[in-house]
């Protein structure tokens, strides 16, 4: 059931986390207990219609953006700022599969912190990453095919990432739809892989910029 709060302005009842008071229509603070999915009015899960995310993001901006509150009082301006900061953070987190995966592992209580190790602990995966690295090192940046080689490597890596996204998506699906907790372990493993691959892509892109 929805929790009831008191409107800070007219003191009427407001459903906690609703943007505006139904009685006096004044802006309400965001509810810190709502997670990003709830805040965007989306079902929690990895599969997400990015078009819907974009639309909701835009609509909320049109309701809450500080530009619309410049001539209002200090409290209203502050709440508008809080909403939009919250909105931007949620948008950033949910839009990207990697940050969305990491966030889901947090909200499902699977793990509190994203591991920060520079190298993976799984030896097989470490080997895999090292092979990718070697291929990247082997590209002769002074050679005339360098740009093309980097592009090809990038395309291959993108395919690999896409496959990871599918697999980790299945893991989350198993938990959210099938109720199988093992799904989360699978999702976590592939989220970690995706993170290392993304780091690799960043490195590759830094090299590619030499040829821009």
């Amino acid at each position, binding site marked *: 059931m929805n929790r009831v709060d008191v409107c800070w302005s007219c003191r009427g009842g*407001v459903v906690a986390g*609703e943007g505006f008071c139904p009685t006096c229509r004044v802006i309400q603070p965001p509810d810190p207990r709502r997670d990003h999915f709830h805040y965007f009015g989306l079902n929690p899960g990895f599969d997400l219609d990015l078009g819907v995310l974009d639309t909701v993001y835009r609509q909320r901006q049109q309701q809450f953006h500080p530009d619309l509150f*410049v*001539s209002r009082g200090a409290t209203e301006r502050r709440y508008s700022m809080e909403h939009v900061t919250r909105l931007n953070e949620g948008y950033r987190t949910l839009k990207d599969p990697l940050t969305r995966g990491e966030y889901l592992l947090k909200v499902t209580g699977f793990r509190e912190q994203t591991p920060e190790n520079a190298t993976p602990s799984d030896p097989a995966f470490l080997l895999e990453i090292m092979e990718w690295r070697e291929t990247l090192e082997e590209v002769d940046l002074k050679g005339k095919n360098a740009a093309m080689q980097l592009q090809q490597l990038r395309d291959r890596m993108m395919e690999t990432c896409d496959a990871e996204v599918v697999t980790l998506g299945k893991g989350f699906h198993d938990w959210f739809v099938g109720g199988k907790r093992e799904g989360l372990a699978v999702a976590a493993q592939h989220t970690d892989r995706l993170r290392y691959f993304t780091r690799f892509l960043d490195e590759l892109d830094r090299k590619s910029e030499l040829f821009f």
Partner: protein
Amino acid sequence: MSVLLDIAEPGQSLRPHEVRPEDRKRVVGIDLGTTFSLVAAVDVQGKPACIPDDEGRVALPSVVCYPQDGRILVGDRAIAASEQYPTDTIVSVKRTMGRSLDDVVASEHRTGFGLEAGEGGMVRIVTSHHRVSPVEVSAHILKVLASRAEEALGGSLDGVVITVPAYFDDAQRQATKDAGRLAGLEVLRLVNEPTAAALAYGLDQGREGLYAIYDLGGGTFDISILRLTQGVFQVLSTGGDSALGGDDFDHLLCEYILKEIDEADPSPAVLQICKAAARQAKEMLSRVDVCEVRVALPHGEPFGIRVTRELFEEMIDDLVRATGTPCRRAMKDAGIRGHDLQGVVLVGGSTRVPMVRQYVKELFGREPLSDLDPDQVVALGAALQAQQLSGTARGDMLLLDVTPLSLGIETMGELVEKIIARNAPIPTARSQDFTTFKDGQTAMAIHVLQGERELVSDCRSLARFELRGIPPMTAGAARIRVTFQVDADGLLTVSAQEQTTGVQQSVAVKPSYGLGDAEIERMLREAMVHGEADWRQRLLHEAKVEAERVLSAAGAALREDGDLLDENELKRVKGLMLALWEASQKEDHEGINRARETLDRETVFFAERRMDRSVRKVMTGRKVDEFQ
């Protein structure tokens, strides 16, 4: 009785962005350019237009001349005086805004005036007889534009929007905002130039979809990728080079001319003449294939120098191509490719160079658009945004911008830990926890940096401060939360807080290049003759806004739950409302606030009854919002 409900009525129907016509404010948009500056306003029909000077010119050259007699000449008058006072004439001051001497010397061309390091390393300009900061010079330009606008609009300005290159860093933005304040202006917002251009374009044509804005001006280059959807202008990514533009083309041509006339060590006067000749040749070459410029030096025969477009294009080839890197990066960051774009918009005088157009066409694989005047479009967009911020716009457009460069702090090993990534939508706030590395450590140095590189020495240092009073603990036990907050102007505030103990301390810093600079602080104080009056005005305004909100809230509550009060109670509440309304018609903010507090206090019982009722509604299984 009904009077009371009536007075609450207008407030009730007011949506945040609806404002009565009599509240129309005098606001303008200012394009503070490297070469030219413009001011624009929105007319009653909602159309933006640039405001011309007495002689019908809209572009004010961004040139300021300080002759020894103490006059301050701006624009064409400064140009006219520049031959007489070559060392007292400041051009392209924007290139020095918010920069250190080292930055400027590294990228700067020969100038007639001198440069030195001022307070906090910030660059200062040295003329033949005095020193002046870039912020002051910019303020002089802004003042001329503001008084032009005040004359046209018939009164003092309520606020301005000033544009900045999207790629400006925090120090450059802060310096620009300070210039506005120094000119005595209320800076409503800093808006990125390409975003402003998109606004003018999009609204003019009712366009939708993905657009790239390619802005090559006199001293800066910007690229922004935006998505336009039903009045929302969402910047997806941005990039650029805040020291690349037509000035650099002039510089190369100027060096060529100097070589042709055998001047290895030109005097400021000769330099001035050759620069003007170079600019002239460059602009002609946008129309013709060959041109000849006359260089008349103070002594001797004038020279005639022939330049072909081919030669010119050879000279600038590297510079033009240098704009490609930020464009590709911006497309990558936005996750799009050239063919996803609906159009590429050209902004800035240097996009008139045919080679630039050709390059843009190749880069994006499409013919660029330039149906609006590329010189005016930024100012027009700024005027639209100013209107929006004054609360008098139609309320159907919204700008969502991003921060151009990553922000972070220094960690072990001279590395930068990023806290806010580039192209993050603003406003934004992010925190990260750090810990102590020595037993009993009670202070921690925090060094704030901006840039994409990993090493501290490769990034722009914005501020340093120290968090003191950390309770002594073993190494790694303290938890220090550092919070970065970027506001809608793109300006950063950093605070730090120790979390593990009840003791909380936080320090907010403003980057040191800007207002933290004691020099500017002093000038600002001097400029604020009206400070006291402004402050009172502001308090009064706030009090009135609050009173209006409270009256509207009380009115809504009475309409909804008035039946919870008996006749006496109702009478008392209405009496207090009337008292507040009467107070709000007067000019005494304390009186208004007292009346408001009284109403608040005396209606607590009413609020409690309403709360009970709300809860009961929910208990009966229906959501509160079904009752609205």
